[in-house]
């Protein structure tokens, strides 16, 4: 997938609002593979909605979203499954981890359908993010910051054309923010993937080519 385009997209809940000052809504926007984008927003700006539309689990918007000129409304569930495994790597804001599984299992459950990383690579990422001692801990027992790092590792466990990161460092300190940014940029540089990261203030420390305000 080379590009993601939005044409006059607008969440239906915003319909009829008089002044929408946004770089994204109701505008033509193109996200290109290999480029890095920061989407900053205020709470309630429709940031998570944007992610949900791009990841195909909500369709309550007007306008069009196109992947390589194909309208995403026409994609089948089968095609969306393929996209979720090999085209778009998504980190949801609410993390969506399984508390009854261990940290490693939470990563493994993604990696077993993509076969993207081996066990050593995964453990190295745990090491780098400073949660190597938590691999066998139940996710439920981990702090929110640790859970977020674990979820980032899970996001990295798949081939992709775009990283779609919804507030990836909202619970992380500067130090970890930098590590996460470096890991994602390294992976993106290696595969040529684009990055779309959102935030409500705590920006992922990547060298963004474009900053869009929602």
């Amino acid at each position, binding site marked *: 997938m080379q590009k993601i385009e939005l044409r006059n997209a607008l969440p239906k809940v915003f319909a009829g609002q008089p002044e929408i000052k946004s770089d994204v809504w109701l505008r033509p926007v193109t996200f290109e593979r290999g480029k890095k984008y920061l989407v900053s927003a205020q709470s309630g700006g429709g940031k998570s909605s944007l992610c949900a539309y791009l*990841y195909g*689990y909500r369709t309550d918007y007007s306008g069009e979203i196109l992947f390589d000129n194909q309208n995403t409304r026409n994609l089948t569930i089968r095609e969306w499954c393929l996209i979720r495994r090999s085209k778009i790597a998504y980190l949801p804001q609410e993390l969506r981890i399984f508390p009854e599984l261990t940290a490693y299992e939470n990563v493994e459950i993604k990696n*077993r359908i993509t076969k993207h990383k081996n066990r050593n690579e995964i453990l190295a990422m745990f090491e780098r993010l400073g949660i190597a001692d938590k691999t066998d801990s139940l996710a439920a027992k981990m702090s929110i910051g640790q859970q977020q790092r674990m979820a980032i590792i899970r996001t990295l466990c798949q081939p992709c054309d775009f990283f779609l990161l919804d507030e990836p460092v909202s619970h992380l300190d500067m130090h970890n923010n930098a590590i996460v940014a470096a890991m994602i940029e390294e992976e993106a540089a290696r595969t040529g993937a684009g990055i779309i990261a959102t935030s409500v203030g705590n920006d992922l420390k990547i060298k963004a080519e474009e900053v869009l305000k929602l």
Partner: protein
Amino acid sequence: MKISIMWKLLSKHVSKTQLAGFAAANIIGLLIVLTGLQFYEDVRPVFDDEDSFMRKDYLVITKKVGNLSSIKSMFGSDNANTFSDTELEELRSQKWVRKVGEFTTSNYPIYGMISLSGQNISLRTSFFFESVPDEFIDTKVENWDFDPQHPTIPIIVSKDYLSLYNFGFAASQGMPQLSESMIGKVPIMFRLTGNDGSREYMPGKIVGFSNRLNTIIVPEAFMQWSNERYAPGIVDRPSRLIVEVSNPGSAEIQKYMDSCGYEIAGDKMNSSKAGYMLTIVTGIVIAVGLVISILSFFILILSIYLLLQKNTQKLQDLLLLGYSPEQISGLYVKMIIYINICVYIVAAILLAAVRSLYLPYLEAFALDGKSSLIAMLSGLAIIGLITLGNIVAIRRKIASLWYMEK
């Protein structure tokens, strides 16, 4: 590893009691269906056997003789109680009719004389003949034919006539009782009177006795020959029909006969109702079993829906990770297939047990049980359908979780 993570995630909230409830209900339902089918299969030979006492699939039908038709026939109208071509066609087109045979009647006067030599007694009486196609005659006799060059008339009479003579007439009149073979040796002389008044004498003898046909039967060949010879030009419509039917107990037949004003001779309808009842009772039993099976199917569906509902969040998370609805449902599908295989096996074992309980009672009819193939295949079809229904329901339910609209 592969299975264990998924199972760890998705087996939560699996209710063993609900699944056991489904399994028990389905085993009972399936067992009832299978037992019904198997029992029907085992007992059916009693009804199908050609020699069996319950086998009565020939009906002799006539039109009802009413006052009006009596008057009509007195005035020479011969249509009153005969079957027209359209009526025959209509009867043949009924789906329970296999074959229809027409009774042909002799159209000229016949006089029969028996001389019992030695006693110097001779019996004389007016006679009539009828004929039916050979395939409807239940008695096998040799030389059942007629040759005008050497005219002898072979006759089959109803067994009832012999009984009437032996136990009614002969006993009260001081006449000798006769066996079937003795009767065959008695020479009978027939006097056949043509419509032009000419008379001919012809010997004949009783060659057999029929249980099915309550009349005096001669070969069709003779009937044709004699009607042409003694009553030329008379085209006769049949007034009695013999019908081979597929299920003589069927109420449908009775209904049809009543609506057309036909009468069925004898009590064959009644005696064959037992077989018909068996079919009905079996049908009811199978229906009850099916209802229980269907209810158990819904128990399972409800249980699974409840399970999926409780696991909605997890299932949606898996979808977000890129798992397809098929992959996610795979685990539940496997679970259901395992359960249903167990249900089937247990029902089959129980069926064998039930059979071993009732088969000894069937030995009285010299039945040793038929194969269980039909019952087992039906069971497989039912359990297969239930499994298929479950799988479709699970897939649809999981696919419905795809969108998480606010």
